[in-house]
């Protein structure tokens, strides 16, 4: 059983980790979208990036729907 001091410490750790995770997510996303190797500076590069994101979104719909269809048999999307 945790005492109030431990709970407080855990909550502070969780808040710090949460802030770190949000910062990490936003900064890595920014790096990815702005071109990790300086290739996405042209119009062609930007179009390519958008195309890849659209492809990812379509694939995500396929993945989630397949996973959902299979879910009745197995807990397919992992948990």
């Amino acid at each position, binding site marked *: 059983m945790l005492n109030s001091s431990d709970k407080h410490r855990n909550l502070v750790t*969780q808040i710090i980790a949460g802030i770190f995770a949000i910062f*990490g997510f936003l900064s890595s996303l920014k790096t*990815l979208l702005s071109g*990790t*190797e300086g290739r996405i500076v042209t119009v062609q590069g930007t179009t390519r990036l958008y195309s890849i994101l659209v492809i990812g979104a379509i694939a*995500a719909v396929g*993945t989630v729907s397949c996973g959902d269809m299979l879910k009745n048999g*197995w807990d397919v999307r992992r948990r």
Partner: protein
Amino acid sequence: MLPTGFPAFVLSWTLVLPLVVVPPIYEVVVEHGILPPKHWLGAAAAIAGGIIAHLLMYGVPSIGFTGIRFWLMPPVGDVGWMRAVLTEGVYAVAYFGGIALTYRLVVAMMSPEPTSISLTTIIVSALVFVFGMATYVIILYPESLTDPAWVRVRGIVSGILLPMCLSTALYL
């Protein structure tokens, strides 16, 4: 219940197949080149890598292998957010290594002209996935790991974020 053995094999197809089949169709529809030469060789390697990654993560009961996922984060009992975030990191290594890196390596090796493997893109895409999932797990903890409704949302968030990040890791 986690998918193990054959269900894990099928699960790998639900993830990798849309990622390798949608881009050629997209190319035909929009008439805009995205894919590298030797895409289908890379796709075959990515499918094989995906199957291996899924079997490693979920296990093969017939040979007594329980899988990394079961060992790291058993489906029963309380799990702390640190272990859940670590599990997402292991997922990232397995999926981005098994699928994206394998695809890039095969395409680079088979391509007639020098092609970059773009390791940075793979790593940054994997980081977006890990930090995205970590944000969800930590902010909604403990519901993100204990409440069935929020656990299901976690699966959907992961099911959307993973293909999008894998897509950039494969083709950007």
